[in-house]
């Protein structure tokens, strides 16, 4: 039954795309985020949905879509360079078979991140992509949120729509994405034109945000809690009355603690006391290993190069009751431990050149969004407020990711690259509009100034 519903939905979307091919791009976004082929049990698993949607999206753009306003930006060039570099390291990987498995999904994410901004050439398309991304993540987190309320969740046990712990459905990744998409929920509800702002959009956004905040509780991931803290600090930039906001936030937190499951609070306490936690001890050891590794191989070891690591360290173990506890240190040997950090993941796998490209892609995004914020802040038209807030949402989402990524190996997470693609599209659209607008001409009294008409030839250089 579920299979049929999902298939009917996808077929419906593909049919709508016959009239407006851009809807195929939205369909691909939805399929890539929600992974409906994993939700269903029967026939839907056998159909290469993602492939069909990608071919439809690309063909629709190449054959039927106007290229007016499409342009290839420097940042897309950086993603392309990263893609090519990843291809080269895959060919020379330490573990060719494992590297090829990871390459198999990474290249698709990067290619689509390069392609997406070419299609997002109007304001409405940017909004539509933001909406589909928000609602697709919403599909996963509403389910996760409700299940958390009903069952309390558990580390590695909360299953949202899918009973799997991979991709976006992996606990830490889902926590990070759920929190980083909160600013986008708010933007879609407040500045949408497809669903114009109403009490319903605000109510729905409030529900989504509540569900998103519950995901780190349900998955009991420490990364999620760190991401919530980052979001709280970032929101201070946007709120009018910061002291009131900080006070209310503290009260809300105090009120929420008694309702949190005990297992959650116990796990979160290990953030401040990482000594007795193997996960935390391993991280430090893997990071040290990675630095030593790129010292020998500065060009990286290709995807999954971590499989070659092995290290022994002493871990503190506390035994007995609180009043009569005994501490002993045990030697632990680990082999093939994952990076547990996106920065070290890129460094180990792609070496210094890969890390520079990756940081450049993200750093430039933060900077571009900040430039838009500064440019739009002084202006007071609804249109400019709208783009100011989208730039803020995309910047904050990315900042949350970059902090969460310190502790989770999600350097190539497709959803994040789609956020990057939205940033590229927004920056490109606004620079086009600025360059297309008539330049300011001082009017002399008594002389009528004829303003030039707006033009937007595709060949114009970005401002």
């Amino acid at each position: 039954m579920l299979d049929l519903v999902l298939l009917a939905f996808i077929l419906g979307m593909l049919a709508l795309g016959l009239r407006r091919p851009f809807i195929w791009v939205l369909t691909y976004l939805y399929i890539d985020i929600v992974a409906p082929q994993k939700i269903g049990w029967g026939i839907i698993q056998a159909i290469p949905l993602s492939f069909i949607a990608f071919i439809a999206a690309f063909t629709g753009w190449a054959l039927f879509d106007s290229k007016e306003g499409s342009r290839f930006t420097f940042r897309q060039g950086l993603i392309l360079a990263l893609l090519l570099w990843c291809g080269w390291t895959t060919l020379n990987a330490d573990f060719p078979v494992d590297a090829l498995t990871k390459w198999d999904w990474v290249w698709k994410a990067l290619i689509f991140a390069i392609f997406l901004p070419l299609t997002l050439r109007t304001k409405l398309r940017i909004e539509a992509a933001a909406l589909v991304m928000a609602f697709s993540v919403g599909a996963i987190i509403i389910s996760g949120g409700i299940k958390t309320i009903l069952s309390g969740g558990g580390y590695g046990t909360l299953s949202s729509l899918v009973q799997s712990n991979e991709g976006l459905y992996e606990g830490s990744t889902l926590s990070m994405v759920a929190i980083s998409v909160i600013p986008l929920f708010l933007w879609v509800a407040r500045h949408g034109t497809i669903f114009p702002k109403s009490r319903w959009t605000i109510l729905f956004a409030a529900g989504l945000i509540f569900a998103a905040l519950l995901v780190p509780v349900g998955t009991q991931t420490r990364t999620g809690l760190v991401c919530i803290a980052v979001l709280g600090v970032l929101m201070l930039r946007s709120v009018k009355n910061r002291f009131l906001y900080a006070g209310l936030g503290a009260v809300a937190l105090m009120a929420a603690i008694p309702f949190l499951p005990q297992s959650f609070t116990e796990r979160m306490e290990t953030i401040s006391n990482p000594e007795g936690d193997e996960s935390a001890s391993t991280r430090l050891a893997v990071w040290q290993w990675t630095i030593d590794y790129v010292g020998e191989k500065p060009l990286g070891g290709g995807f999954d190069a971590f499989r070659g690591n092995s290290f022994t360290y002493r871990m503190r173990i506390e035994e007995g009751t609180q009043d009569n506890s005994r501490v002993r240190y045990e030697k632990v040997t680990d082999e093939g431990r994952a990076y547990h950090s996106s920065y070290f993941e890129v460094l180990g796998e792609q070496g210094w050149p890969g890390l520079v490209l990756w940081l450049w892609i993200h750093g430039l995004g933060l900077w571009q969004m900040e430039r838009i914020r500064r440019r739009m802040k002084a202006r007071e038209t609804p249109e400019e407020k709208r783009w100011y807030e989208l730039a803020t949402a995309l910047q904050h989402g990315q900042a949350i990711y970059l902090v969460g990524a310190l502790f989770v190996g999600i350097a190539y997470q497709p959803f994040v690259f789609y956020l990057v693609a939205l940033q590229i599209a927004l920056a490109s659209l606004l620079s086009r509009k600025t360059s297309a607008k008539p330049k300011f001409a001082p009017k002399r009294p008594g002389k009528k100034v004829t303003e030039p008409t707006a033009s937007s030839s595709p060949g114009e250089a970005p401002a």
Partner: protein
Amino acid sequence: MIDYFTIALTHGLIAVAAWRLLFRDDLDSDREVDATDEAHGRTAGKRADKVGSDDA
């Protein structure tokens, strides 16, 4: 049951959004919208009588 509710709600909204996009001219081009905005003085608060809408 929870999954059915979630899927019905979010997929329903995405489907409605896609349906509404079919009837929006500004999906494929911003030009007409910009011209209309300018004509109503919505962009940058400028008087629009100088910028004609004949460039749309």
